[in-house]
């Protein structure tokens, strides 16, 4: 049996829509990830960031009340790699978060899995030199 691509990786999912959130979680779980969340709103997401260790995050920009970057800000402060999973264009994203990967709705399971995989690969390379304070999951390239 092939190695699961996200095996052991802890991923936070922030998505306000129940169906999409459960879809994303299901896809990631099938790819071997351990799920934190899903969180339907900023408040819950921030509580989880403080409470749970995780390696990466998939974040929607609209959490029910228009675009918000509270979660992105907190993740950036904690130096956790994250990507946006959103229906918004890149132009709505503030400059400081514009370099973060973005997958556009509607997306399929493999889109999410490969984006998270790429995110993790990229950040573990960068993290080796930058001294990332993330928990460092089991996933290695």
């Amino acid at each position, binding site marked *: 049996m092939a190695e699961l691509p996200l095996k052991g990786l802890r991923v936070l999912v922030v998505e306000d*829509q*129940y169906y999409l959130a459960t879809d994303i979680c299901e896809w990631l779980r099938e790819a071997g990830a351990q799920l934190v969340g899903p969180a339907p709103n900023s408040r819950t997401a921030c509580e989880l960031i403080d409470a749970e260790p995780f390696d990466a995050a998939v974040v929607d920009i609209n959490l029910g*009340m*228009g675009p918000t970057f509270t979660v992105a800000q907190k993740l950036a402060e904690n130096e956790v790699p994250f990507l946006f999973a959103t229906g918004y264009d890149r132009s709505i994203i503030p400059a400081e978060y514009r370099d973060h990967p973005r997958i556009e709705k*509607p997306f399929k399971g493999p889109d999410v899995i490969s984006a998270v995989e790429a995110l993790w690969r990229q950040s573990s390379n960068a993290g080796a030199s930058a001294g990332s304070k993330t928990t460092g999951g089991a996933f290695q390239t």
Partner: protein
Amino acid sequence: MAQVPTRQTDAATAADLIDRTSAQAALRESERKYRFLFESMDEAYAVVEVLKDDAGNWADFRFLEVNPAFVAHTGMPYPVGKTATEMLGSPNPRWAQLHGQALDTGKPMRVEESEGTLGRTFDLNIFSLDRERNRVAVLFTDITERKRQEEALRESEEKLRLIVESARDYAIFTTDENDVIDNWLPGAESVFGWSKAEVEGQPAAILYTEDDRANGVPVQEVETARREGKAPDVRWHVHKSGRMVFIEGQVVPLRSSEGDVRGFLKIGRDTTEGRMAEDALRTSEERFRQFAEASLDSLWIRDAETLVFEYLSPAFEQLYGVSREQVLRANDVKAWLELLHPGDRDGAVAALRELRNGVPRSHEFRVIHPDGQVRWIHNTDFPLLDDQGKVQRIAGIAHDVTERRRAVELQGTLLAELQHRVRNVLAMIRSVVRRTSSSKSDIEDFVEHFQGRIDAMARTQSLLTRTPGRGVDLEDIIRDEMVAQAAQEPKFKLSGPPVSLAPQSAEVLTLALHELATNSVKYGALGQNDGRVAIGWDVQRADGPDWIEIVWRETGIDPRNERAPGFGTDLITNRVPYELSGLGELIFDDKSLTARIGFPLQPGHGILEADPTRLMERANG
């Protein structure tokens, strides 16, 4: 007495002698005085003997005696003993005849005569002295210079007269001591239209406007001239035709040699055309000033060199939120720059620099009002050139484009929201398809369920757009769903207060109601004759937002109809708590079903999930 006759005779002789001696002394004294006068007087004096030619006509004269002034007046050397012909080199028969005439008549003569050889003119007084010996005395003065001056004066006066009479733009005339016109020159006729004949003898006041006459202006002017030596006369006058003529001139008194004022000289230039042009310019300037002052855009002009404001229209105050005085007090470019958003100052300086180089341009920048308000200004700037084509001033029109920019940004936001929404709906459909297909093996069954769910989502959209910007009425949602299922009252019953739902809540609730209703038609109360559905709701006050609880109760269900937990169950028991931070439960018993859905009522009733104004603030922040 007889004893001394000799002594008497002697005495008489002595007395006679004394008399003769004293007479001689008196004569000597007289001659001395005469000689002194003769030698010291300014006039030339000569005694001449007039000579006749062979035919007996007066032809020449010989100088017998001259005084010292003679040489000065004639420029001739000492002439005594010589004839005029000898002195002058040629005969002067005219003078010989004049002298002779004095002898012939015995009467003194006074004549002015020019002497060609000497090139001088003399004023001559000729007296007969001794007719026996043909002697005359000539008292004379050299009047050559005086004559020359008189001639020059005459020529100059003539020239002046010609100038005065040909100066058609200048009205020149004189009045008598009562200000009645007594001398009317052609220029005056040309300016005022009256002919000499018409106007001489008329009061000068006829040239003034009715108002000025009523106010005594003509009298005031001559009185001022009389008192101060001159008076300005700069005002509108009246032409014979009645049209107005603008005169710039003055009045001066004419005085007699005794100093009495005998009349007035009035000289004035017709500057009507210039005045009209000036008036037109003033009117034009006034018009542009009004235009600039009334404009809601701020017009400004700066000196290109110093960059100080030369003009700043009142609209500046609305645009910048500060008084013009505040900016004009310091009036340097720094004071203005301080009103700008710090991030836009460099750009504004660069724009001024280009403008100075003659490049017109428009640019936008932010200003910060004292109350912290940020406004966007669109400046259309252009250089103003002097005659040589150099940039002398720079100018511009400043327009408040805050609203326009807001509208453009709002449009961008709306577009972004639209994109988000379309993509989200597609993602949702994708998810719903997946969920519907996983529980349906029959394609027809799938299509039916999927269509129903899509329709339910579409109904939410149409409800949202029916009252854009507002919430969705709960009762409308329920009724629409019941109509879609062809259910009629009293098969179902609704009870609850009017409630307006936020879009997100409405979306979830519509789908939940749809699942309940379709299941009810298929397996429950709506599909059975004696089945009933009661839908009630209530709003409760809570610490945070109000809490709404909706209860769907089906009664009279055939207990043989079994329902497996599926899409609807997941929706009510999982999606509602997840998305609405609420509660959802389904309770079955033998003959009834109770669905309980509760969630906090969220404010925010827009069709879009985002509030555009809030978005903008973030985008600008």
